[in-house]
């Protein structure tokens, strides 16, 4: 597998179930396939296919722990979309508020 195309990220996000899976991981990171299936009314196989799509787009990362395969939300591509497609188009007013918040919170980051 090589670097991920931005199109793959947007295509992976263009699906209700896949966005819901990301929400589930955001609420509770590091879940097995079985755990992720519980919140969804669909077959295990269908959920597994959606997770494969998310992993191919690098939106989900998996780690093995013993016999379990755990799924994690990977925040890097969403951060890159934010930098490239959202921050740039925010109006000046929002931008100023955002900068103020950044400065106010700057002391405890990193």
């Amino acid at each position, binding site marked *: 597998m090589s*670097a991920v195309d931005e199109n793959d990220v947007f295509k992976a996000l263009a699906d209700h179930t896949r966005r819901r899976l990301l929400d589930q991981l955001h609420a509770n*990171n*590091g879940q097995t396939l079985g755990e992720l299936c519980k919140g969804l009314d669909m077959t295990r196989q269908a959920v597994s296919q959606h997770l494969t799509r998310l992993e191919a787009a690098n939106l989900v*990362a998996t780690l093995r722990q*013993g016999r379990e395969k*755990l799924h994690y939300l990977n925040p*890097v591509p969403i951060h890159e979309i934010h930098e490239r497609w959202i921050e740039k188009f925010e109006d000046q007013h929002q931008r100023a508020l955002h900068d103020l918040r950044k400065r106010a919170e700057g002391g*405890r980051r*990193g």
Partner: protein
Amino acid sequence: MDRPAFVCVTYISTTPEKLWHALIDAKMTTQYWQHVNVSDWRPGSKWEHRRDGEAGEPALVGKVIESSPPRRLVLTRAFPADEAREDKHTRVTFEMEPLGDVVRLTVTHDRLEAGSEMLEGITEGWPKVLSSLKSLLETGRPLPELW
């Protein structure tokens, strides 16, 4: 064993050796992190994360657990106030896997307390740091105004 709380993956067009150097070199960390990481990077050694240049006060401290260049670096990470309290130390694992002409970098941050200041900080921090690192290695330019 706990489930790690935070995993970040990015693909960078570089070599494992260059990526390793970028993780441990004080000058390069200053460029893309805008903070500096200082250590001799030997197992058992201390490392410090300083916000105001190499002579600055440490904002984060820890120890090098494993150093296997250019594939795997494991560190503990804590606020200076918690340095003596090992139960408060979190753990960061960097793994580099070459895949053709790119390197897959996985950062796993575990032993994190739910709702802690550390977890909140890194949730915002790691994606920024890794995007800036990727930009520096691929284009020669880090991202501006990270913090």
